């Protein structure tokens, strides 16, 4: 090591220690903000900036004109941001305190952003909690306080090839775990290459698996969200059941990207589990009339019925310069009739239960399945470390499905890693 290098290393070390010397956590910042200040939503004025992702970002700007007609002094400025960049952009905005007034927030990001102190807690009198699906409202609560309002939801149901099921003489709407296995096996023996496809690991596999765990009576955390409960007999039971689809050769261990829809249309795959977006995809892939030969069924029940609930929430930032108008806009978007109109515009399923009582949402039988499933759908706990813990589930689940790892071992491994990661609250 020559002299100049030694000097620069020393300088780096000194700077680092100088920086760290002034550090140390103060009192827990999350604790001081238990309740929210009231909001005056009478006559509001000014500009509100709204960030939204994907289709929502494209369509919200025009849709919001109905709000500005009611509140002529307000201008709503919608910025569309791509999903890929959204997480980092919001995180950076909070760090720099250069936040918009309102942003759409993916349900699984709630824990992280709420604990970072960037989100304004939902004013309790403003919005009626009971109007929403229970699972949807649950996704806004972090450490017992709600930090957002559900905007739209999605949940997972079973897509079954009706013709194959009839041919095999099995029910296309399996009610129990045994029924689902029988239906899958039946369709396989009736000519399908695979009776069912279930995601066998990789990113997001937990969303396919967790419904089974919930159905079997397992929970991710205990009631007051202080400890993980992955290492339970119910969780192991669900893993064992999930694994049996792979060990018995009913479900494929590997499904190359982009083959699910064509194979399902071709009758090579009997059934799969997915969300409402697959209606559109199947309509495109299968051509007109194909959807008539598909049965949408609620997920089977074991101890109880359950599915996964996803979607997006609307949050107001603490740094918002126009807090009253921002909350009024969020409140407006969560009204039942506005939610129904928003569905007509984007096909986003309403998070407000009463919005399902009229129009297409009430009459379409396929949508009715989603509506029914939504009442039993559950969300993972909104903790800041959830993304990391779900990644652990994905990894261990992959071992269970692909290399035959013992379900009990997997449950213990998930539990240990989850405990090491912690809740982050």
């Amino acid at each position, binding site marked *: 090591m020559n002299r100049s290098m030694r000097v620069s290393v020393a300088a780096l070390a000194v700077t*680092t220690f100088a920086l*760290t010397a002034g550090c140390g956590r103060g009192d827990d910042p999350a604790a001081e903000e238990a309740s929210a200040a009231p909001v005056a939503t009478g006559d509001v004025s000014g500009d509100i900036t709204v960030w939204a992702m994907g289709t929502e970002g494209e369509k919200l700007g025009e849709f919001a004109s109905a709000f500005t007609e009611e509140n002529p002094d307000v201008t709503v400025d919608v910025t569309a941001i791509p999903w890929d960049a959204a997480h980092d952009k919001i995180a950076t905005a909070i760090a720099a305190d250069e936040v918009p007034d309102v942003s759409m927030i993916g349900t699984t990001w709630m824990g992280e952003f709420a604990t970072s102190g960037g989100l304004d807690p939902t004013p309790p009198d403003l919005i009626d909690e009971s109007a929403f699906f229970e699972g949807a409202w649950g996704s806004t609560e972090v450490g017992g306080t709600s930090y957002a309002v559900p905007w739209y939801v999605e949940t997972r149901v079973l897509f079954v090839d009706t013709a194959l099921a009839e041919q095999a003489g099995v029910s296309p709407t399996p009610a129990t775990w045994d029924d689902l296995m029988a239906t899958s096996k039946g369709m396989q023996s009736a000519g399908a290459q695979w009776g069912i496809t279930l995601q066998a*690991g990789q990113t997001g596999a937990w969303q396919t698996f967790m419904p089974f765990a919930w159905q079997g009576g397992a929970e991710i955390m205990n009631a007051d969200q202080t400890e993980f409960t992955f290492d339970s007999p119910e969780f192991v039971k669900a893993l064992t059941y999930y694994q049996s689809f792979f060990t018995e050769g009913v479900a494929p261990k590997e499904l190359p990207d982009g083959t699910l829809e064509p194979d399902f249309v071709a009758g090579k795959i009997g059934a799969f589990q997915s969300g409402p977006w697959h209606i559109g995809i199947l309509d495109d892939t299968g051509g007109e009339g194909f959807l008539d030969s598909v049965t949408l069924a609620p997920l089977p029940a074991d101890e109880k019925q359950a599915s996964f609930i996803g979607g997006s929430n609307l949050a107001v930032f603490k740094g918002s310069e126009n807090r009253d108008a921002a909350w009024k806009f969020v409140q407006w978007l969560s009204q039942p009739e506005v939610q129904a109109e928003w569905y007509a515009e984007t096909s986003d399923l309403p998070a407000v239960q009463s919005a399902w009582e009229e129009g297409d949402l009430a009459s379409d039988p396929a949508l009715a399945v989603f509506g029914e499933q939504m009442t039993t759908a559950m969300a993972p706990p909104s903790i*800041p470390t959830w993304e990391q813990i779900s*990644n652990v589930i994905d990894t261990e689940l*992959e071992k269970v499905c692909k290399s035959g790892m013992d379900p009990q071992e997997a449950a213990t491994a998930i539990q240990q890693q989850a405990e090491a990661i912690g809740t982050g609250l």
Partner: protein
Amino acid sequence: MSTTLTSGSGVQAPGTADQAVPRVRRSSPLRRRRSIAAWGMAAPFVLLFLVFTAWPVVSSLFMSVTDIKSRDLQNPFAVNFVGLDNFASVLADPTFRKAATNTLYFVVVGVPLTMLTALAIAIALNTGITRLAGFFRIGYYMPVVTSIVAVAVVWRFLLRPENGLVNEVLGWVGITGPDWLGSTTWAMPSLIAMAVWRSLGTLVVIFLAGLQSVPKALHEAAALDGATAWQRLRQITIPTIRPTMLFAGVITGIGFLQFFEEPFVMTQGGPLNSTLSVAYLVYNTFGFGNYGVAAAMSYVLFAAVVLLTILQFKVLGERDDATGAKRRWFRRSGGASA
């Protein structure tokens, strides 16, 4: 030494000059004005360097010794100093070890393979192929300038288990190819093949430039003395282009250690983490908001890059043989005469 010469104070022992001369200069107003002007001119660069190079390095170092997480973004200094705990937990983490093993596998197989293939192609282009040389040069350089995202789609098609081109061709000779990207055994070799293909072009260009500097006369003389092509390659070409090989080895080694794009676009680190690289794990860890741990991981990776580079300098660097000694003597005498 050079200071004594520019000051014009004649021949003096370096030690005494260093002490005596600056003291005189420090008091000179002209000298002070000059140094202010010099710093003024250097200021834009110094400022850019401090803000965009030094600051990120210092702050990442700072992160690596604290328990900073994404929730601390608003108050980045309100975190606890944890010493080397992050480094300890990184080194004890089985996922990190798996990623480190994968990266090592990738580097140990990938770097020599890339260099040998590139060298072979460069020699072929330099000596054998005279027709269409331009076409081949463009052909080999093409993958370097193509977007990895577009390439990934094509490679995924090639490697598909059913009706993928690779398995179709294997099928003609009666081999049933595996599910390349879905198999824990074959996913990494597939990515290595892709990485070799992708980084070949740059090395071919570098080696071609190096080969131009090999004196033709040496080859002709050796050929006259009855040396075979292989002997000439071993004894003339390789020693002459050793500095080129060192450069190629270092940049390829650094690039391969930071192996990220291939698993990111092709396998997402799967199946069963068999293609998870250290850089990808760092990316994921930052994504999970564990900035402290992720920064510590990147410094471990940085240390690995330094070690690999030192190793390459030892293996491929100047040898202590006749040419090396001569060159050093040249530099010394050149310095003294300036």
